[in-house]
């Protein structure tokens, strides 16, 4: 397991090199409204480069909606309105003119339920690469192998790359989905409860995998498992439902949130939950 040393504001202050003074992706006054209700309001959240930021809080407090707004998956939901700013590497990505396909390649996303494309294991990685214009077969093959090695799946599947992906176990499928995203060379990984549909063993494997990606990717993970957040996160953002919609009530280094929370709600939430 990787160290749980919290990130400091910058490497100059002795923090790990991942944490630059400016966040890689950040929201400013971000709100998301569905036709009848508001999922979350006025969220200003920095997500630092190379770090793992855990987003925790009770159900229905807008965590998943926030994640989906970061790579504009909320565009798919009819009558869903996002206000505020999202900046990726300093550039605003909320505008209509933003190329969402390119954005989603830079900001990959993994869901709770791993859903393979209805193809073979190889084609699950090959197809998105080809769609993103990687023409050379040898280049695609190299990326596929590297991604499968990164998620520790290569030795398990190298002899049956052309078998249907649906035949993999739940934990293998989730790692395949992560590999599929990694093959596209994203900068940011958004993980929406990636372990909660898996058995404990597979969950542990995927958690270790996520921790091993620290430093190489900027990671935001929504989790209900506080013990997991404590083990892998550098930063923690605590969400809560206030006045019927989700609010960010506290954000900070993981150690600070878990040991000296400034908000009573955070303290109660951390204290009440057992890993």
């Amino acid at each position, binding site marked *: 397991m990787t160290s749980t040393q919290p990130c400091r504001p910058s490497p100059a202050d002795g923090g790990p090199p991942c944490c630059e003074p400016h966040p890689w992706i950040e929201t400013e006054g971000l709100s998301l409204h569905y036709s009848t209700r508001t999922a979350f309001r006025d969220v200003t959240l920095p997500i630092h480069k190379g770090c793992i930021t855990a987003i925790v809080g009770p159900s229905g407090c807008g965590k998943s909606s926030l994640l989906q707004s970061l790579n504009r998956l909320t565009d*798919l939901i009819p009558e869903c309105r996002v206000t505020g700013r999202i900046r990726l590497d300093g550039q605003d990505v909320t505008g209509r003119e933003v190329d969402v396909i390119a954005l989603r390649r830079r900001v990959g996303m993994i*869901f709770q339920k791993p*859903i393979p494309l*209805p193809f073979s294991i190889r084609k699950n990685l090959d197809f*998105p690469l080809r*769609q993103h214009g990687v023409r050379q077969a040898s280049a695609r093959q190299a990326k596929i192998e590297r991604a499968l090695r990164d998620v520790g799946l290569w030795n398990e599947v190298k002899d049956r790359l052309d078998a249907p992906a649906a035949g993999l176990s739940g934990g293998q499928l989730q790692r395949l989905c992560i590999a599929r995203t990694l093959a596209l060379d994203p900068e940011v990984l958004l993980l929406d409860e990636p372990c909660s549909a898996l058995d404990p063993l597979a969950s542990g494997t995927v958690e270790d995998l996520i921790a091993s990606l620290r430093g190489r990717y900027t990671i935001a993970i929504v989790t209900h498992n506080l013990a997991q957040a404590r083990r892998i996160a550098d930063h923690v953002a605590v969400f809560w439902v206030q006045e019927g919609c989700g609010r960010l009530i506290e954000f900070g280094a993981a150690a600070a949130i878990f040991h000296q929370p400034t908000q009573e709600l955070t303290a109660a939430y951390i204290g009440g939950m057992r890993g």
Partner: protein
Amino acid sequence: MSRSTVALGERVATAVLWSAALGVIAVFAWLLVDLAGQGLSRLSFEFLTAAPRNAGRQGGLGPILVSTALILLVCMAVSLPLGLGTAILLAEFTAPTQRFGRLVRRSLDVLAGVPSIVFGLFGNVFFCQVLGLGFSILAGGLTLACMVLPILIRATEEGLRAVSDEHRRNAAALGLSRAATIAHLLLPAAMPGLLAGWILGVSRAAAETAALMFTSGYVDRMPESLLDSGRALTIHIYDLSMNVPGGNATAAASALVLVALLLLCNVASACFASRWLPRRSLAR
């Protein structure tokens, strides 16, 4: 209620359900036996290939089968791309509540309920006269296309809507374009629904008489182009049984051929669905 009355109730219910199912089969069986009794003696390979003689009392179905196939071909060649496009627009690019989508859907429902004779008259006026196609296979096929479009579109749309949004979100998260998602993931997944709709459409088109009477005409010669008039199988059956004394045996034999063709269509689609689809299915 005692145990024995429950058991009796169950037995009665089972008997009712079985007899209802058997009743449906019996109607179909009766129809087949009746047709076979009248027409089986006329069936032969020559009957399928030869030209009709003596107003159809003798000879075979050769040109009629060719005309029928051409009419269906025109119908499908026009309605499949149009239907697919409209269904994709409705299912993927308009919200169920949006006014435009509602308008299109409502019009389709109205169209689906229009009697085929009305389509026939419309086709006669629009395709035969206004567009100057005359009584022709082309006019007949186009009229049928108008008629089966609503069925095709609704079936395809239902098929696409049945694919859960998870898959769209999953594909979008990989940065796949809408077009790639539809072509490579959604359409294959929706294929069972599409196929069912297409088979229904083809069957309805193949079984249509009224709409063709005023559009593709009665001429039973071998067609030389799509602009020739061509007699469809159903028109042949109608003509033999209503206008040709002594044509009943041939009418029954032609009807057997028609039923066999429709059954073949269904079986082929079922085979196709069970062999090819599981590999592409998104259901897990």
